[in-house]
């Protein structure tokens, strides 16, 4: 998908794909948080003119979904575990009829005791998933029968370091539930014929979706094709098939194409959210040096663990706190628990956001307690020279800001870093007399990856960009092309390297010199070789976490200046600086966009966003109530992209989740600088800030 189609209305997102005669699907969602389903009577729905099929667990049996742990039923069986859970799917000739039919289905619920909130979830002695051990992907050793998963690690000599510590700092931070809120709601379209399945879906992992459909349908994977449509915003939301499988089953039963487009209130009330987290950090400091860390994170995993992709069924908080600092002795854990809330899922940096708010806030607390300048303290404890370089950049600007007149204000900083997620990608480079075509099956979710691929191809082959075409190949149309999806900031790094590899192989086969002569030099080489084309494949993979001795991460530092209205608690972020060390920049416009966009996203989730849930019911069910930042809510932002460091490995580094994770602590630290009040709980809403101000003055 090239950019031009996005500015002329031509880009066809899933909901834009025409499908005359397609049936429309509506779901019956549970209105209760925990209940036994004692009866489903779809007769009134079936009787409505235009209703073609009604699907319940009786028709499909138990089909469990999950990215790691498979505990999420396509449709509820004899129990519902959260408000919004899908219980019945109705297919009808138009959306209004489908909705009317869904409303006409009579479901009887017999209430069961509900578990809300982290404390209740941790205490619950009656497990919400008694059959947990049978689920594929179940974690063997869990702390209690209501735990979803656990990830615990230990490195170095933690206990001796704490025993010898001059000071131990112990703070607990909390973060609220918020939502990815991509503007494009989930949508899918499925067509099933005798020998083929075609799927269009707002799904960033089309290969996984394809395998899943083949498995559920018991059909050869080769017969399933997932068409690549641009995704209208992901931010973690588009990795789980909330509706796709029910639509597939309905398409197969009815023999008609079937589509579903979520309403926005379903988007906010029936998908998945960022995990509300409680992060306790105990940090040992001696002689101004951080000696050891004990980080414990507990999260409300909600009704199902299946939306999470981490194999341990938690969020990736491990190695995140104090990740920019040299802390060799680390004991870390993250535990998720079942509750009757919406399931937790992935939202832009699903665990790092919570972890970095805690640790970059605590770094500030420690510095102040030790009587040190927070930048000084960061500099002294930084993991390496790349990070010290960022601290120095921040310092020069912070000093400049402080020298300017500005009334009551505060300045805060935070450091962030980002690993590249694991993944594998195989692409193909086809060089022909008229130009070069790179074929790949990578989803465009808006990070500018396609224009990056174009540039990498042009550079590697030494040809003008006008001769390069990136061709999205539907998943399943070509058995060689592979991609593990666009999560974890890995697209540019992994797929980008695969593009380079394929071009290098093609180059070797051509045997020419890049940039040799004017225009499209490979045409001449093809003629000399007497072949019509040269075709070469390239594969790249990235593991995670990074190998210990090489800093393959991207790093950043954020400084913000705030004013605080002490009567209302409102934080006014007046300006911001972002210093980024992201190695080599391949596509300046897209790179800048990711950095700026990450800042906006982080600021929005820092100040505004809380998906409010009362007794399991989301009360912020529209974008009128769940507010996200608008153009008028973002401050001037200066971006300083550093030249690659001397020891930079030259690899493409991730930027998509580098920035949003650092905004919250920078703002909280700035508020402390302004009024001496430490904020431990996100989001930093005006009411919460005012409460903290009053608490302090008490």
């Amino acid at each position, binding site marked *: *998908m090239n*950019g*031009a189609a*996005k*500015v*002329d*209305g*031509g*880009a*066809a*997102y899933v*909901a*834009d*794909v*025409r*499908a*005359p005669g397609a049936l429309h699907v509506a779901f019956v969602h549970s209105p209760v948080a925990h209940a036994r389903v004692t009866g489903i009577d779809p007769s009134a729905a079936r009787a409505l003119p235009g209703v073609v099929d009604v699907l319940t667990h009786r028709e499909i049996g138990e089909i469990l979904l999950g990215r790691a742990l498979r505990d999420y039923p396509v449709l509820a069986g004899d129990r519902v575990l959260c408000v919004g859970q899908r219980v019945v799917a109705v297919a009808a000739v138009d959306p209004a009829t489908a909705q009317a039919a869904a409303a006409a289905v009579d479901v009887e619920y017999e209430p069961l005791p509900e578990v809300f909130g982290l404390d209740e979830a941790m205490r619950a002695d009656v497990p919400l998933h008694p059959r947990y051990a049978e689920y594929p992907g179940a974690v063997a050793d869990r702390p209690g029968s209501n735990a979803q998963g656990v990830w615990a690690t230990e490195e170095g000599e933690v206990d001796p370091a704490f025993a010898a510590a001059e000071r131990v700092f112990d703070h607990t931070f909390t973060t609220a539930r918020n939502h990815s*809120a*991509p*503007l*494009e*709601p989930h949508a899918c379209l499925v*067509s099933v014929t005798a020998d083929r399945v*075609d799927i269009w879906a707002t799904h960033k992992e089309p290969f996984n979706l394809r395998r899943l459909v083949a498995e559920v349908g018991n059909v050869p994977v080769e017969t399933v094709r997932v068409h690549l449509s*641009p*995704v*209208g*915003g*992901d*931010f973690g939301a588009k990795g789980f098939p909330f509706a796709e499988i029910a639509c597939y089953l309905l398409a197969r039963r009815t023999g008609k*194409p079937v589509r579903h*487009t979520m*309403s*926005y*209130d379903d988007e906010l009330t029936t998908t998945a959210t960022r995990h509300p987290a409680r992060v306790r950090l105990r940090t040992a400091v001696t002689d101004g040096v951080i000696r050891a860390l004990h980080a414990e994170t507990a999260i409300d995993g909600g009704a199902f663990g299946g939306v999470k992709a981490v194999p341990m069924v938690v969020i990736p908080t491990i190695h995140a706190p104090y990740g920019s600092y040299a802390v060799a002795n680390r004991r870390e854990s993250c535990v998720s628990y079942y509750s009757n809330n919406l399931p937790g899922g992935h939202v832009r940096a699903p665990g790092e956001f919570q972890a970095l708010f805690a640790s970059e806030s605590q770094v500030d607390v420690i510095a102040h307690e030790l009587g040190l300048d927070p930048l000084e303290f960061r500099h002294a404890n930084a993991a390496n020279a790349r990070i010290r370089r960022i601290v120095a950049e921040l310092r020069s600007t912070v000093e400049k800001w402080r020298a300017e007149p500005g009334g009551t204000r505060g300045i805060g900083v935070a450091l962030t870093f980002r690993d590249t997620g694991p993944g594998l990608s195989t692409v193909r480079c086809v060089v022909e007399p008229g130009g070069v075509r790179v074929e790949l099956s990578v989803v465009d*979710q*808006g*990070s*500018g990856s396609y224009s990056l691929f174009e540039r990498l191809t042009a550079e590697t082959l030494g040809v003008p960009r006008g001769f390069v075409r990136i061709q999205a190949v539907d998943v399943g149309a070509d058995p060689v092309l592979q991609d593990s999806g666009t999560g974890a900031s890995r697209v540019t790094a992994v797929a980008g390297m695969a593009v380079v590899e394929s071009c290098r192989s093609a180059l070797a086969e051509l045997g020419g010199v890049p940039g040799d002569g004017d225009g499209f030099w490979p045409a001449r080489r093809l003629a000399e070789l007497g072949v019509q084309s040269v075709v070469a494949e390239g594969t790249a993979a990235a593991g995670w976490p990074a190998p210990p001795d090489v800093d393959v991460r991207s790093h950043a530092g954020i400084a913000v200046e705030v004013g605080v209205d002490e009567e209302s608690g409102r934080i006014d972020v007046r300006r911001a600086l972002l210093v980024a060390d992201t190695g080599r920049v391949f596509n300046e*416009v*897209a790179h*800048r*966009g*990711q950095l*700026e*966009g*990450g800042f*906006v*996203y982080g600021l*929005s989730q820092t100040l505004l966003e809380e998906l409010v849930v009362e007794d399991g019911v989301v009360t912020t069910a*529209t*974008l*009128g109530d769940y507010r*996200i*930042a*608008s*153009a*008028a*809510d*973002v401050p001037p932002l200066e971006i300083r992209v550093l030249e690659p460091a001397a020891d930079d490995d030259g690899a493409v580094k991730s930027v998509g989740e580098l920035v949003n994770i650092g905004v919250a602590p920078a703002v909280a630290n700035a508020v402390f600088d302004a009024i001496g009040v430490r904020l431990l709980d996100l989001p930093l809403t005006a009411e919460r800030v005012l409460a903290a101000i009053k608490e302090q003055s008490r």
Partner: protein
Amino acid sequence: MPEEPAPHQESPAAGCPVAVTVNGKPRSLLVDGAARLLGVLRDELGLTGAKAGCAVGVCGACTVLVDGAPTSSCLTFAAQVDGAEVLTVEGLAAHPELRALQEDFLAEGGFQCGYCTSGQLVTAASLILSGELAELSDEDIRHRMLGNLCRCGAYYGIQRAIAKAREASAG
């Protein structure tokens, strides 16, 4: 699966005649009184540039211009635009200065995922078409654009693109 726009079919319920000019083309439609402009543009006219987003008039992904005014086509009844001129993102390129705005969005990073982009462009186009843009401050522009949400956070790029258009309109 056929992907061509289906020929317009008059359903028996459709009873309200609407004569409207869409992107310069006169159209005569019969719509249900409760039909929204967004649905008619997308389903009847095959113009899918305007997107369905929040459905409550907040996000702006469905923005089109009706007689020059930015309009939430997800809220507006199709029958309300009888006699009006509608401009959608698909019609921008016919105006040279709006074509240039599209280029500015490309050059300045005025979008990422692209889902809100039609609405952003159309609202920005209203500033150009009304002749106001040259007089607007950066803050004025933000005030006029704040109803078009961009979850990718391309606000800075959008602002740069509109500022570029402002320079062009002033010069």
